[in-house]
């Protein structure tokens, strides 16, 4: 059957199971938007292409499917770039479509021509420039496959306008031939045996669970491994939820703002089991002194991540779930009572210092807000965040018991990610409670997307922790720049009036006693709601490992201010 290239795009999207696309129209992509009207695919008009890419990313992480964003050529395409880089660094499967000038004008600087495949080469898993309608079906099928398989990531398809308009015979390819792309699944059996030996010899093992656990769907396998071998589990920011926070073997988050006892366990470990994580500098701190007495086993699908930052003793290259299934029958039950005892001691000491045991009368602490928010949502909300202190507090005090409940920009640390990714997550799970915990700075980077939420009737709740600062940068200035607050004081708009202008119900809270009521108000009000908490302005995230310091050399919350008995 003859179809235009634009129709072929839609035919392929329908076959990939795509139901929603986030995008922004423009001249070079008009034929695709036009054809969309004839297909059962909902287009969400964001207010900026960056928001479309973030929303596609949020959708992908919440649904486990591929998210789709679409934009026109030139500025439309370049506006996607930060979103694509964000997806790349967090291995998030999105496919981005961009319009391009007609093929015969390529390279001539025609109106709104930019070399977007060139620009996105280093920030995509793969990209395509399509100049002929005949090639579209093949390319789109490949793109979705590449985006979601192996180590997932963003793929961009730049389509010349003539390739959208031309009518050609449409045939959906039966299968894909990508001879250079064959992600590994099973690890080498010999290496499995070496790993089993190290595991049996370990006295102080720690599992490091990364994003890979959730991406490969290995949470059950992780839990089984941990329980059978009696191995505690530290998690990366994107790994939170791999093992329930309430599980006795959970050490919570590791790294720069991780739990002190988690970092102490890593530094004193004699065997690290890295599951689908990549030893990012935010989790290792000083590499030279990282886990000095530990042997290391790395299970990882991307061979270029192995030995990259940390040399390991055994590398198991392949799909984590497959490998954990393969290794399970080879494992003997472990017994590490002494080690777990030691960790409990560290943990008690950490908890005594924790801000949760601080009084809450005078100032409103962000940590308290997040803690109350966690309790009132039963730990069951999908939480997206911006980037900064609020992101760390969300990670520290919302106890994630399930995978993909935290959706946050980890590798790139991209401010502005919170609201649009929440909108994307809502399209994946309209039945679930979706919140974004945002900073006043991060929120202002994506605040136009409030209109998107309103237009779509998206049931997303926006919790702003307003400290009138670019707080995380301010914290660094406090610690490392003698409190010289350069470019960090931040005047926001009146968020109540702003919300009103958008037709969004809103509440402002400045005392702890009102925290919960506002959350309930948001939960009981359909559609988007803004809750602004006026929090302590010069609060800091603890513990903190300074850049370049050793992982267990942490700046701790000053103990002097602390109250002995925990507050209710």
């Amino acid at each position: 059957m003859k179809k235009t290239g634009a129709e072929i795009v839609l035919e392929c999207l329908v076959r990939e199971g795509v139901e929603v696309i986030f995008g922004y129209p423009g001249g070079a992509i008009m034929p695709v938007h036009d054809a969309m009207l004839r297909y059962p695919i909902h287009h969400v008009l964001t207010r900026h292409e960056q928001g479309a890419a973030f929303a596609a990313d949020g959708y992908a992480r919440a649904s486990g499917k591929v998210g789709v964003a679409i934009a026109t050529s030139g500025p439309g395409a370049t506006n996607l770039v930060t979103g694509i880089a964000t997806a790349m660094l967090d291995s998030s499967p999105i496919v981005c479509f961009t319009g391009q000038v007609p093929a015969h004008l390529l390279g001539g600087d025609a109106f709104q021509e930019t070399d977007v495949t060139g620009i996105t080469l280093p920030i995509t898993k793969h990209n395509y420039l399509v100049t002929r309608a005949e090639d579209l079906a093949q390319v789109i099928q490949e793109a979705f496959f590449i985006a979601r398989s192996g180590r997932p990531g963003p793929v961009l398809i730049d389509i010349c306008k003539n390739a959208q308009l031309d009518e050609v015979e449409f045939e959906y390819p039966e299968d894909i031939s990508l001879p250079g792309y064959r992600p590994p699944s099973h690890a080498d059996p010999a290496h499995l045996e070496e790993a089993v030996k190290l595991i049996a010899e370990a006295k102080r093992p720690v599992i490091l669970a990364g994003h890979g656990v959730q991406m490969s769907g290995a949470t059950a396998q992780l839990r089984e491994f941990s329980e059978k071998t009696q191995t505690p589990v530290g998690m990366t920011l994107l790994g939170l939820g791999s093992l329930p926070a309430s599980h006795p073997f959970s050490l919570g988050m590791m790294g720069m703002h991780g739990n002190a006892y988690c970092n102490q366990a890593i530094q004193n470990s004699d065997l690290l089991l890295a599951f689908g994580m990549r030893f990012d500098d935010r989790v290792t701190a000083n590499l030279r002194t990282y886990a000095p007495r530990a042997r290391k086993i790395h299970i990882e699908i991307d061979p270029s991540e192995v030995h990259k930052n940390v040399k390991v003793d055994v590398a198991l290259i392949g799909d984590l779930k497959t490998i954990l299934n393969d290794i399970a029958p080879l494992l003997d039950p472990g017994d590490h009572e002494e080690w777990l005892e030691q960790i409990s001691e560290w943990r008690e000491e950490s908890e005594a210092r924790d801000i949760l045991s601080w009084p809450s009368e005078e100032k409103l602490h962000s940590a308290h807000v997040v803690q109350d928010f966690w309790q009132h949502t039963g730990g069951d909300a999908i939480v997206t965040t911006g980037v900064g202190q609020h992101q760390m507090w969300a990670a520290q005090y919302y106890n994630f018991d399930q995978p993909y409940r935290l959706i946050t920009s980890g590798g790139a640390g991209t401010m502005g990610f919170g609201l649009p990714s929440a909108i994307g997550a809502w399209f994946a799970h309209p039945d679930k409670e979706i919140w974004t915990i945002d900073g006043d700075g991060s929120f202002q980077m994506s605040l136009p997307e409030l209109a998107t939420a309103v237009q779509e009737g998206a049931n997303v709740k926006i919790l702003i922790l307003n400290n009138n600062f670019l707080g995380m940068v301010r914290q660094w200035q406090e610690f490392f720049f003698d409190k010289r607050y350069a470019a960090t004081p931040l005047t926001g708009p009146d968020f109540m009036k702003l919300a009103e202008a958008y037709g969004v119900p809103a509440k402002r809270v400045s005392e702890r006693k009102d925290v919960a009521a506002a959350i309930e108000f948001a939960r009981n009000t359909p559609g988007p709601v803004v809750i602004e908490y006026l929090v302590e302005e010069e609060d800091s995230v603890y513990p903190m490992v300074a850049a370049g310091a050793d992982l267990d050399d942490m700046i701790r919350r000053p103990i002097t201010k602390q109250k002995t008995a925990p507050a209710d």
Partner: protein
Amino acid sequence: MQNTLIAKVENKPGVLNRVASLFRRRNFNIESLNVGRTENPDVSRMTIVMEGPDVDARKVEANLYKLVNVLDVQDVTNQPAVIRDLALIKVKSTPEHRAEIANLANIFRAKIVDVAPDSVIVEIAGTEDKIEGLIELLLPMDIVEMVRTGQVAMLRGEAPGIRHTPGANGNNQPKHYKK
């Protein structure tokens, strides 16, 4: 020390750019990079030479495999291989000097491929060492211009190169994916 890798890549537009971009981004220092056609019209072949004390061939290989268009990578450093470089060297030469240059060329099994009134072009193919040797002797005669292709390499007989990351490109899995 020199490291030599052979990469087979899909013969598609932009693949060289992807490889070059990868090397730049990952800060891999390339001594020479040669790309050419092969017995299979769908496949191009790259010979990548890296120089330096801390070249990590494994890392380069693993990163190359991240590119969807890279089919196979082998490390042929210190393996039984034929490695050749081709150089064209233009040397200043008055008619009196020609015989001397021809003599040198002969010894190195090089050829004089062009003669102009005051210069000649010498063509030499061979290993790095051999070419360097000739260049050294020609230097005093005033080299006007020189171009080298960079090395190309081929393993002898059936000998396989080293694959540092077995399974990296799913080597033990079927070539065609069905969805």
